[in-house]
């Protein structure tokens, strides 16, 4: 007889959003299963050695991996109600019967039938096509951060960074801290995309930032030995002479896109929102999708940053628990309102404008009865 595991809340993804959702749902007395495909919980937080910005409520000034430790400690307080599976990927959601299939490693396969699901599947790195981009030595910035900050391995000797957003800038600085040379940072736009303070740090160390430039081609026979870069015009068409840059690593930090295949499989209503960097689920103010038993939170709901992901996760976890009749109604309304206000504050700045424009395209004021 095939067993289908039961739980009140299934949280898919154990990064900042998923951990926060699991915590809140458990704190209201829900039985929770949390699955994460990685070997440790914490998502991208565990490799973030830089201090966070944002507000005090959301632990500004604390380093990312420390925030992960704090969340994991909180989770331990609820260990009687939260069952955690790591190295465990949710491989499918079957809309016919609401069953979620999971595989641990490659050896254990099981099914869960949850009453509620919080999708906190995070993001994946964008790639851009250029000749020879398959050569060993072309990395995503996330992989470089994992190698260095989780495993203590430097990827190479001299890196060409592609992308001057926050990830490109921060990873460049961390590479320098680890003794790796940065040959330069290439950025297609006419200004640095990331925060000024991160850009200033690498510029002070003499790293050239090539604005309005793109990578034309990776050079090398069996491994990367360099790259050709070239200036581009307003329509991203190449102008001027190609420059040759020597490097043994090309690190791509050209953005993220929400990981959304399970949302599609589940049958959530989806929409393409460029400001949120890809396809996202329509959701109400409590992060509930068009499917009444499915919530979404964090980068899976649109690319933002970890602080907002944590608040969204808390909202989703609380609302999912509320829908199961948990908690005190008035108290929950108050807590949810407070969290929504915190999200609003986080999105108050210049960077938040783009996010707010994007959210206006995919937010629904309540799904009705």
């Amino acid at each position: 007889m095939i067993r289908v595991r039961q739980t009140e809340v299934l949280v898919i993804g154990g990064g900042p959003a998923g951990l926060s959702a699991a915590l809140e749902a458990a704190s209201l007395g829900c039985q929770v299963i949390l699955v994460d495909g990685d070997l440790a919980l914490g998502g991208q937080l565990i490799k973030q050695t830089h201090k966070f910005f944002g507000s005090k409520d959301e632990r500004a000034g604390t380093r990312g991996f420390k925030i992960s430790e704090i969340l994991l400690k909180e989770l331990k307080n609820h260990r009687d109600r939260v069952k955690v599976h790591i190295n465990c990927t949710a491989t499918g959601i079957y809309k016919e019967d609401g069953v979620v299939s999971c595989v641990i490693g490659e050896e254990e396969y099981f099914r869960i039938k949850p009453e509620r699901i919080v999708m906190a599947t995070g993001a994946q790195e964008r790639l851009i096509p250029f000749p020879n981009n398959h050569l060993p030595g072309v990395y995503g910035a996330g992989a470089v951060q994992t190698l260095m900050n989780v495993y203590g391995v430097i990827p190479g000797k001299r890196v060409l960074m592609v992308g001057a957003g926050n990830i490109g800038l921060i990873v460049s600085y961390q590479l320098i801290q680890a003794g790796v040379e940065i040959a330069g940072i290439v950025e297609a736009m006419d200004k640095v995309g990331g925060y000024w303070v991160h850009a200033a740090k690498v510029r002070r160390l003499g790293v050239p930032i090539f604005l309005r430039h793109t990578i034309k081609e990776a050079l090398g026979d069996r491994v990367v030995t360099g790259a050709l870069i070239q200036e581009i015009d307003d329509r991203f068409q190449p102008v001027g002479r190609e420059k040759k840059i020597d490097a043994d690593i090309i690190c791509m930090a050209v953005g993220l896109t929400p990981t959304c295949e399970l949302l599609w499989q589940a049958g959530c209503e989806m929409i393409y929102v460029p400001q949120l960097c890809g396809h996202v689920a329509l959701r109400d103010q409590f992060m509930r999708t068009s499917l009444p038993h499915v919530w979404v939170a964090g980068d899976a709901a649109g690319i933002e940053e970890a602080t907002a992901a944590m608040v969204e996760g808390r909202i989703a976890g609380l609302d999912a628990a509320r829908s199961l009749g948990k908690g005190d109604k008035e108290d929950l309304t108050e807590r949810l309102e407070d969290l929504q206000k915190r999200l609003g504050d986080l999105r108050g700045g210049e960077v938040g404008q783009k996010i707010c424009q994007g959210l206006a395209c995919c937010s629904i004021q309540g799904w009705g009865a």
Partner: protein
Amino acid sequence: MNEREEEIVICRCEEVTLGEIREWIDRGYQTFDELKRVLRVGMGPCQGRGCREMILRELSLKTGKPVSEIHPGTFRPPSKPVKLSLLAAGGDT
């Protein structure tokens, strides 16, 4: 399009190049799912996580439709490879 660009591998799982994708779009295969059926793009171990976006952009360039109007194709379980022996055993009993 220059030759160097044609050789760029877009779908690494199934080793499909940019040249092949452009060729089949020109032949009239103008949705992601059609390209998937003729070229197997997005049918390997990563299930399109690496190539889908680049292919949608290419479809957008060729058809003149914005990416928001191009359907990203059907998503089916499993989202990563699962051994057939595990599926046959049916999970935990």
